């Protein structure tokens, strides 16, 4: 493994464009990794909200309180990362903790107590309970919206998946970058692949893919469903066969242990070429009649 360039390297104007773009990408990834668990849980939570809560709150006959509760759920989801981030900003770094261990800050009083309700724990409470309770209120006020007659089965299943992802993301701690990981990196030569893709193979495979895809454009205007399915099946099978043949030809170029002589190759393929010539000749004969 090699040492990765830090974000500072990306600001060097003399660095090549590829290095600068890689550094920018690293900065973005590092910012994303610094997001807390509540921010990561907010994405599936918003998905679950849009599928299961919002349609119920804005269904016909739902009271205004249900809409307000639904909006409160969204606010709980979206403001939880702020609560979590405020906690991180409030807690001083470790060196400062050691230096000011003797002089502890005074306990907040009155409304200032609210500023102490920050950090991952409070963010999780705000996110999970705020969202779940508001959703429960919506469903209680508009129970008919979740009946099987009005809720589509696929949408309901997707909502279950959304809620499961929200629960999973809320339960697990967010993955953060290990500050000591950089010290464990051993600088050395870059890793070499065990084998390299031979030059030209990609062209063969790409040609096979193009041919196979071109076949899929045939027969889309067939009116009879049975015939349309048959055409689709045949074109898919033919495409797979062509792709397999081009791959075989590409692979055959690299087997050099026992190269077949030109005479052997011709003798081996001669029956097939003869059958092909026979078919073509019979086809031409039938057309000319």
């Amino acid at each position, binding site marked *: 493994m090699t040492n990765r360039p830090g974000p500072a390297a990306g600001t060097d104007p003399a660095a090549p464009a590829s290095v600068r773009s890689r550094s920018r990408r690293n900065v973005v990834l590092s910012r994303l990794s610094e997001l807390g668990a509540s921010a990561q849980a907010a994405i599936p939570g918003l998905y679950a909200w849009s599928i299961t809560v919002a349609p119920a709150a804005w269904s016909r006959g739902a009271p205004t309180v249900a809409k307000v509760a639904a909006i409160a759920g969204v606010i709980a989801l979206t403001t939880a990362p702020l609560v979590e981030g405020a906690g991180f900003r409030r807690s001083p770094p470790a060196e400062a903790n050691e230096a000011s261990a003797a002089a502890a800050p005074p306990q907040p009083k009155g409304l200032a107590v609210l500023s102490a309700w920050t950090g991952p724990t409070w963010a999780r409470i705000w996110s999970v309970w705020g969202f779940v309770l508001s959703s429960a209120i919506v469903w209680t006020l508009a129970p008919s919206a979740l009946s099987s007659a009005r809720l589509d089965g696929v949408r309901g299943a997707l909502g279950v998946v959304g809620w499961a992802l929200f629960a999973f993301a809320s339960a697990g701690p967010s993955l953060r970058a290990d500050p000591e990981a950089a010290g464990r990196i051993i600088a050395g030569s870059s890793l070499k692949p065990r084998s390299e893709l031979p030059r030209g193979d990609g062209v063969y495979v790409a040609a096979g893919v193009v041919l196979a895809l071109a076949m899929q454009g045939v027969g889309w205007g067939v009116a009879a469903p049975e*015939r349309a399915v048959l055409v689709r099946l045949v074109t898919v099978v033919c495409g797979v066969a*062509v792709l397999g043949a081009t791959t075989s030809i590409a692979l055959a170029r690299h087997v050099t242990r026992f190269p077949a002589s030109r005479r052997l190759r*011709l003798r081996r*393929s001669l029956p097939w*070429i003869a*059958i092909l010539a026979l*078919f073509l000749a019979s086809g031409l004969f039938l057309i000319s009649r």
Partner: protein
Amino acid sequence: MQLLDLLAAALVLGAAAAFTFGALALARANDVEAIYFLVVGVVALRAGVQLVRPGANA
């Protein structure tokens, strides 16, 4: 690239064309013509692969 490799590539291209003609014939409900082109495609494909196959066995 040898001459046989070019012939193999031409056979594979011809097979793809035959498959396409077969599918078009199938879409027109012309089954005999479709079977003819599909069989021609299979044979051309097989011949192309046999042409480039290495090894000493026949």
